[in-house]
């Protein structure tokens, strides 16, 4: 029986990753169209609406950019940890705790002026995220506890913490019986840059640029890449693995926490347990599609922002916004599958005699 097998190409296809991205995106859209057809919707209509809601005009695009900010920061958080071979699955929790810290600062600084309060909340968010990552970082560095498990579990704890705060100490006295956090002071709202994009965009761009440069060009980033390639090689070169694990995971948490602070000041009116909106998990996909490179994270984040914004728009014509989630997953599969074909080609082969 002849069956297809994957054979490694001598030379990977030129311009591989962008090509894989385009092909994967196309495949995802086609598969998504099949799903929509089966569900009885018109794929053309759905895609047209999604496109116009996300890229149709400047206002639409400004909404997309707003979405891309937390996605890019969460993606960056995952990517910097991955440079060293570490998996921060806890960006979601770090965003939540970052937002919680920012909300706490808002309560203290109710009387502060806008710029001071906003700065304090955003920096506080970042510190909160770093603190949320500190436990897993220390456990990994000093006793080798798997960071995937610890960061993942802390996500759930962050949700419960907010629930507790909202139900207890931080319950809004003016909530008329509603269980909610008190409204944020008006002066804490991030000003807009243009249309509906707030100035968090500038912060995100600056952070991406600085950290991207650090990872790819600084000696700190070099040590990170050596350690990611082989821990034993890092030890040989005199690089302290413990310190590297600690700093990189804490920095990763700080970047995710920054997203929490920005979301709270930029898009929320009060602290809720949904303020993170799954950005922490979507960030893992964003980072994976960007091949864990900070430089690619921004572009992928804008695309995912568009898919999410587009997904919400089609609720108006009675299509579930789950379409958006399905599309995000299909894009991931499509691009990864196409990525395999960059490095391998398919050949039809006779079955081989089992030799090993």
């Amino acid at each position, binding site marked *: 029986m002849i069956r297809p097998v994957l054979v490694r190409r001598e030379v990977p296809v030129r311009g591989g990753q962008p090509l894989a991205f385009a092909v994967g995106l196309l495949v995802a859209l086609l598969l998504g169209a099949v799903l929509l057809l089966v569900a009885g919707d018109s794929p053309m209509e759905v895609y047209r609406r999604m496109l116009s809601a996300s890229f149709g005009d400047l206002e639409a695009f400004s909404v997309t950019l707003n979405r891309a900010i937390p996605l890019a920061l969460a993606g960056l958080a995952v990517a910097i940890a991955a440079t060293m071979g570490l998996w921060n699955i806890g960006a979601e929790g770090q965003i939540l705790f970052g937002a919680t810290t920012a909300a706490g600062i808002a309560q203290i600084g109710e009387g502060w002026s806008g710029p001071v309060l906003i700065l304090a909340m955003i920096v506080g968010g970042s510190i909160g995220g770093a603190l949320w990552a500190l436990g897993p970082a220390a456990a990994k560095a000093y006793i080798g506890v798997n960071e995937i498990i610890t960061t993942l579990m802390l996500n759930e704890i962050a949700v419960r913490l907010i629930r507790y705060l909202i139900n207890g100490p931080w319950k809004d006295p003016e909530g008329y019986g509603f269980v909610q956090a008190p409204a944020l002071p008006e002066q804490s709202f991030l000003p807009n840059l243009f249309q509906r994009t707030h100035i968090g965009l500038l912060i995100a761009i600056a952070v991406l640029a600085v950290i991207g440069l650090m990872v790819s060009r600084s000696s700190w980033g070099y040590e990170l890449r*050596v350690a990611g390639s082989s821990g034993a090689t890092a030890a040989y*070169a005199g690089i302290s693995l413990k310190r590297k694990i600690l700093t990189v995971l804490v920095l990763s948490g700080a970047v995710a926490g920054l997203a929490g602070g920005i979301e709270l000041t930029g898009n929320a009116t009060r602290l809720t347990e949904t303020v993170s909106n799954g950005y922490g998990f979507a960030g893992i996909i964003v980072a994976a599609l960007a091949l864990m490179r900070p430089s690619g994270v921004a572009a992928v984040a804008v695309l995912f922002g568009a898919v999410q914004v587009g997904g919400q728009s089609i609720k108006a014509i009675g299509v579930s916004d789950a379409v958006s989630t399905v599309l995000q997953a299909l894009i991931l599969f499509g691009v990864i599958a196409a990525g395999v074909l960059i490095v391998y080609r398919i050949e039809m082969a006779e079955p081989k005699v089992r030799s090993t």
Partner: protein
Amino acid sequence: MDAAPLAVELKGIWKRFPGVVANAGTELTVKRGSIHAVLGENGAGKSTLMNVLAGVYRPEEGEVRLFGERVVFANPADALAAGVGMVHQEFRLVPTFTVAENVVLGAADRVLNMGAVERRVAELAGQFSLDVDPQRHIWQLSMGERQRVEILKALWRDAEILILDEPTAVLTPNEADELGLVIRRMANDGRSVIFISHKLHEVKQYCDEATVLRGGKTVAASMPVADLTPQQLAELMVGEATEAALRPEPRQAGEQLLSVQNLCALNNRSLEALSNISLSVHAGEIVGIAGVAGNGQRELSDVIAGLRESTSGTVTLFGEDITTATPRQRFRAGLSYIPEDRVGVGLAPQLSVTDNAILRSYREHTRGPLIAVDRAKAFCADVVDSFKVRTGSLDQRIAGLSGGNLQRLLVGRELTAEPSVIVASQPTRGLDVQGVKAIQELLIDARNEGLGVLMISEDLDELLAISDRIIVMHEGQIAAEYEGADADRSAIGLAMAGESP
């Protein structure tokens, strides 16, 4: 059962791998109910031959006969079904399962009655004096106990022929003696045991017959162990000198550069790997460390390089105590290290040629917090040119380089720092003939320029060819020391095998 056919006959086995012939017409016959030693140096073809018998590899030529009948195995399961069980050096057990679960894994009834299985496993263990509790989990067991579980697995599947691949390497001396009793019971039960080892005293103590391999060929087949002296076995193992040495001109060694005093250290399993090692390396000499793999050489080089802590003793460089210095401090002080595991320790496989070239010196090629890419590339180009590393682009990942070029890059990087001492662990292993020659010449040049070289190798010919002195390590101790000129092959071979000459 006098007329019983031989349990195992391997006839004219050929097996090649890219660049190496592992078995070149190897022969092996094993009698029923006997313990048969297979001896040979690293690379003699022992493991490949055993993997052929256990169905892991298919020979390109030759035949396998069990109890007189020709068999062809497609996979290890076939071999097991025919009665050949193998206990590999790396155990294949599920740590979170119990002993009984591991034993029956893949060979259980559809409905498991664990109580009954545990009783039967305990019974089987008792029959062969294998002391292990069927209810305990693998992760709770010592290496010796895990090995017993592997043996139980083979017995559970009715293995008539059991292959033990260097079984004592992971055992304490007491555990090794217990294993000796277990395999004797198995032999008395009519089973055949193939015992792979480098250690002559174990062969003398536990085995009935011995077959010696060298360079993929059988140089002595089924010799009764009782009639052999360790001296004879050692000579068979190491053979005669093969080629003229490229021995450098003898010269007067200079001042003492590196000195190790009463060094002790543990291996990764927390067993003593080095006990009271003392040696020194002087300017302008190559000191060769000979020994069979796993006798503490790796730990010795790691401790000297600062990658492993010593439990006692001192390391000094230029008379300064560096016992607690970091790897970076040692390198700065003039100690270069070519580790045994080139790509996992000495190089970062996923990074570029440039990134690997600056591994030791990246802090010197910086502009502010950033690495000065132009200076780093210039440095890399210099190493690549001076040491003739063949590479397409300096930005390409080193994963695409050949073994010889990887080693040139590594050795080049270490020598470019102008060290005064080089510790080189297996620097030529796995390289082709030209690569071996090139690396040996680099080390000899370094020695001629007045560096001290400590070279660890399992290839005795190589050490005899280029060393000024040879130190033999056995079980973490220095077993013997020879001046290069009057080093005697068979005496070294004997010392390597743990016999005093």
